[in-house]
């Protein structure tokens, strides 16, 4: 096993050996690593928790097919928050920072040029991050719509400008079909990336063991041997324990390089999404057949976070406010668990057993999430109520599914997040509604039943009173949106 990691920085392969002399540990973030260099101080820390985007850098990787295979002639650029990425996660990737954007002759990149011309910076502290977020947009979405621009910039807080000039800069800059000096260098970079072996890595320091296995088999063996080790999907949740909690994480298994977990498999009856598929890919995969999940993912975190956060990680947190969970429940999804002893499927309904407790055994991994395609006529909707509409954690969220037979409720799923210690179905209300006419009077009666299903808490995101009022109201909203009359 190798103990070094390799990636590309400033156009060259960079190796990191973790030792006390260079002060780097496997849980050093890319942000803190970069800021050690005199020539990489453009990357800024605004929050160290993924909420401000000042630390945005881009990662380049050979583009991937949905089936998991690699396209060998193109690099896919993704903007990510460097404050939430542990150094070993860079292995085999190209790291691009604000300092790399100018071309060799000193010319500004088109997004930089537009930002200057449009007065897109005031104090300038958010600016490198914004430019890097815009860089992904430039490369991946030529001639973006306003919605695409907003989506690309949501993860970047700017306290000075009011964003309008930034939006204008993006729309003026992203008009060159993504062409820039990176295209010229791409063949060389691809060759370089290929030369980095995708081997297993074990980083052992005085206090930490960081495994970065290369195959699924290894992952399962490690999970068996180290059942308490922390699994890293995208680390957007785990990294906060380091950057905010200042915890020393002693045993980690990084599964972000496992190709087997990144596969999306569609059959006529279901869609199986690998646990390691990142949220932006999930969002694309479900657009056609699972619009309610798609809609939820539109307001899930930010582009930077969705570029690394995985669906497996969202389930893995078992958080009562995990946004994908209620709507996955409404779709009747199943969780596929895997260990050295094999695979098993569990209905998401039964999966959560208590506050951040699940049916998953310590040696098991979440392998995939299986969404059954819905029969004709079944309507599924999702709702998120949060203080700020975007890049906010839900105060409450919901996924509802309804099957009517001549206006009568044949089956209904009312799954809520943020109302109990787990994602939870309003089963009393559901039972009340089954067999009844789906009309306003019934729904209003049902709203009162919600009180029997839930006793939410008051916390910083909202009072219990607010949660209850909104939870009831979502029913009438659902009725209104499904009422075809």
């Amino acid at each position, binding site marked *: 096993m190798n103990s070094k990691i390799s990636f590309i920085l400033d156009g060259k392969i960079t190796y990191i050996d973790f030792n006390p002399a260079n002060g780097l540990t496997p849980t050093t973030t890319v942000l803190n690593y970069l800021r050690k260099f005199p020539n990489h101080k453009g990357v800024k820390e605004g929050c160290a928790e993924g909420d401000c985007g000042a630390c945005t850098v881009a990662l380049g990787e050979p583009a991937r097919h949905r089936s998991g295979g690699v396209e060998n002639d193109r690099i896919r650029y993704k903007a990510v928050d460097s404050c939430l990425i542990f150094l070993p996660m860079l292995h085999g990737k190209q790291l691009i920072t604000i300092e790399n954007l100018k071309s060799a002759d000193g010319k500004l990149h088109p997004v930089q040029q537009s930002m*200057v011309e449009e007065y897109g910076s005031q104090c300038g502290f958010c600016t490198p991050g914004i430019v890097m977020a815009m860089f992904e947009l430039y490369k991946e979405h030529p001639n973006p719509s306003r919605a695409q621009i*907003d989506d690309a910039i949501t993860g970047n807080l700017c306290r000075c400008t009011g964003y309008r000039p930034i939006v204008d800069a993006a729309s003026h800059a992203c008009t060159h079909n993504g062409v820039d000096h990176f295209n010229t260098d791409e063949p060389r970079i691809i060759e370089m990336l290929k030369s980095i072996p995708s081997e297993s890595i074990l980083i052992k320091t005085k206090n930490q063991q960081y495994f970065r296995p290369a195959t699924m088999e290894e992952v399962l063996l490690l999970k068996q041997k180290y059942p308490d080790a922390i699994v890293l999907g995208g680390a957007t949740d785990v990294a906060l324990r380091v950057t905010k909690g200042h915890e020393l994480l002693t045993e980690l298994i990084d599964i972000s390089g496992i190709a087997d977990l990144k596969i999306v498999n569609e059959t006529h009856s279901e869609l199986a999404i690998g646990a390691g598929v990142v949220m932006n890919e999930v969002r694309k995969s479900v657009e056609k057949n699972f619009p309610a999940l798609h809609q939820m993912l539109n307001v899930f975190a930010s582009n930077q976070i969705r570029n690394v956060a995985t669906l497996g990680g969202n389930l893995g947190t078992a958080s009562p406010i995990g946004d994908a969970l209620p709507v996955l429940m409404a779709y009747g999804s199943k969780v596929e668990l895997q260990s050295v002893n094999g695979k098993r499927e569990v209905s998401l309904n039964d999966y959560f057993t208590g506050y951040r407790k699940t049916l998953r055994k310590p040696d098991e991994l979440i392998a995939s999430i299986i969404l059954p395609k819905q029969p004709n006529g079944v309507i599924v909707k999702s709702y998120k109520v*949060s203080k700020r509409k975007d890049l906010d954690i839900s105060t409450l969220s919901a996924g509802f599914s309804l099957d009517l037979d001549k206006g009568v409720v044949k089956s209904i799923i009312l799954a809520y997040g943020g109302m109990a210690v787990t994602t939870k179905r309003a089963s009393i209300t559901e039972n009340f509604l089954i067999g009844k006419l789906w009309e306003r009077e019934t729904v209003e009666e049902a709203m009162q039943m919600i009180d029997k299903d839930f006793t939410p808490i008051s916390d910083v995101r909202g009072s219990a009173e607010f949660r209850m009022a909104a939870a009831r109201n979502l029913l009438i909203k659902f009725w209104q949106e499904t009422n075809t009359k």
Partner: protein
Amino acid sequence: MEKMIPHESGIAHVTGEAVYIDDILVNEQLLVGRVIYSPHAHARIISFDLSDAKKVKGVHAVLCHKDIPGHNQMGPVIKDEPVLAENEITFVGQAMFLIAAETEDQCREAEKLISVEYEPLDAILDIETAIAKNNLLGPPRKMERGDAEAALKSAKHIILGELRTGAQEHWYLETQACLSIPGEGNEINVFSSTQHPSETQTLVAEVLGINRNEVVVEVRRMGGGFGGKETQGNHVACWSALLCNATKRPVKIKLFRDDDMIMTGKRHRYLTKYEVGFNDDGNIDALKLEFNSDGGAATDLSFAIMERTMLHADNSYYIPNMSVTALVWKTNLPSNTAFRGFGGPQGMAAMETVIDRVARYLHKDPTEIRLKNFYGTETRNVTHYGQKVENNRLNLIYDKLIESSEYEKRRKEVDEFNSKNEFYKKGLALTPVKFGISFTTTFLNQAGALVNVYTDGTILVNHGGTEMGQGLNTKIQQIAAAEFGVSIEKVKVNATNTSKVPNTSATAASSGSDMNGMAVKNAIDTIKERITKELSTIWSAQYSINPSLQNSILFKDGFIFDSDHPDRRISFADAMLQMNLRQVSLNSTGFYKTPDIGWDKIKGQGKPFFYYSFGMGVSEVLVDVLTGQHTLLRTDIVQDVGDSINPGIDIGQVEGGFIQGVGWCTTEEIKWDAKGNLMTHSPDTYKIPTVQDIPKDFRVQLLEGVPNPIGTIRRSKAVGEPPFMLSLSVWLAIKDAISSVANHEIEPEFSLPATNEVILLAIPKLKPSRFQRP
């Protein structure tokens, strides 16, 4: 003058080359500083032990109040803020000890080894409790005109009520930061993210017990300030200077976001009581206001802020009988501080609530009531504090905006939409702003500059203002270039440095460009005077029959020439070399003090402001009645900036200020728990606007062709703060939407910010309908 000049640091910003405190390259002797703060809102410190902490490897200093060589004081006006707590701590987040170590981890390790014994004391955590315990921070103030009491008695209609406006966190992207580097002897160089370098210098000198001429404070730029670094940037500077002094090594402190949010003050929250008397037409005859602000644990700028509230309680309206009472309360929270608008927003929120309520009461459109009560031009044009509202542009802007925003038509459309929709409601509101420009503490209205011209014709401008993104240095660069008649590339604006320009005021009160621009011009005038004198001598000697008059010599397009004899010309650069050879000094200081102002604080009468800035905004929102979430559909703004020096920058100030205001009015909610801990201490729970929160349709216009009639720099007007308050149009549009649920028959329960929770919980109280249980 070239106007559309990009931000002077634009290229440095977009390439990441712009240097902020944390980016300054320092040698390997740099130590990391860390501030250990109190975990209690109010407690007595019985004992503490730092000995174990000092033993940690890599730790170079652990300091407490006893280690302060000078004064243990950093209050800017009133000396009521210890640098490090002594016997008592008065809020969660108060600095107690300082650590300097080689790494951040060593600091944290040492921190864990500090033991402190406390005796917890009762804490006051809100205005109500402070009022109940009569815990005032200073004497109440009153401003009066006419007899509000009597006029209220005789008024046809009276409304009374209460309004709560919330605190706001500055959320500058760059947290508070300072790097101190020791020099020879007592000398210390302080690189600080401060809006007030002279005060930082003063306090560092006092805290270290050294002279001011031994302290140099430098500010290249801030990553945002918004008032949060007007006084509280000083704190971090004092702490890092103390550690630097103790270790004789460079020490940098950059607060972590959560620590910054926990330790520093916010915009003051207010509880305002009002009583208004008016007639059937909506003419307001009497208004009584009582402002109660939460000052926090120390004075900071609370009284100046409250004064500005009192001076903006009228907003844009003439009210014959007015009485304003103001009380600043002391609580066990971090001392609240300056924030864009400086008390103005809280005053205007109250006044606009009054207008809105009068309108609803009379079943009239609020714009009608606004128009009716605007200050007049010939009559009804004196404020409650005796200043005449000159060059009033309210009606001009109103007419323009009503037309360009299609207000009337959209009012009808909104009403129609609301009559047809049960679950979504729209709201529309227009609000004006009249903002007084000048520090109300009159002596602060002064600025200095130092301009150096070099023999290659390049110019280095120093001034006392600080750049925090507002474009001050860009405007200064433009002003200097225009005055010297050279292109802007020839002008460089230096980092603000107390050894270049001393004894300056804070960059605040929107006055940065007004005052520093004038001081720079003054310096340039002096240099130009010398140059023209010398050139007229040279040319007159050359052409003795037709001598050159000094006054005819002009600076333009990189040349200096005699306008009476245009063939007598010399390039600017050549001229500078000549001047040097002929022993003419090419540098000068400059100075400016705002003329024609005078304010009697005791009587509350006079002319505190040099002039007023005017603006108006119309906003339309869509409220989801079932979730309380809202969407800002459209905002139209017309802002008066006089003759803009740089429209790109000014529009940026209008838009940025407005959106920051929208945050204050909607999603930015600060919560403390029952023990005085800040619950919203990170961006995870404290939500400032994202790109998705700006108006879907955002139309900002600067009022054109109306230079400032009074002598400001290039006839421009200040722009930093006024647009913030235009966001009240969004807040009242939300209220309009809510109130439409009950067909505007019932006054909704409403406060600021109007979060989704406030909105959702207001609705059932309006309409105990079938679907919303009360």
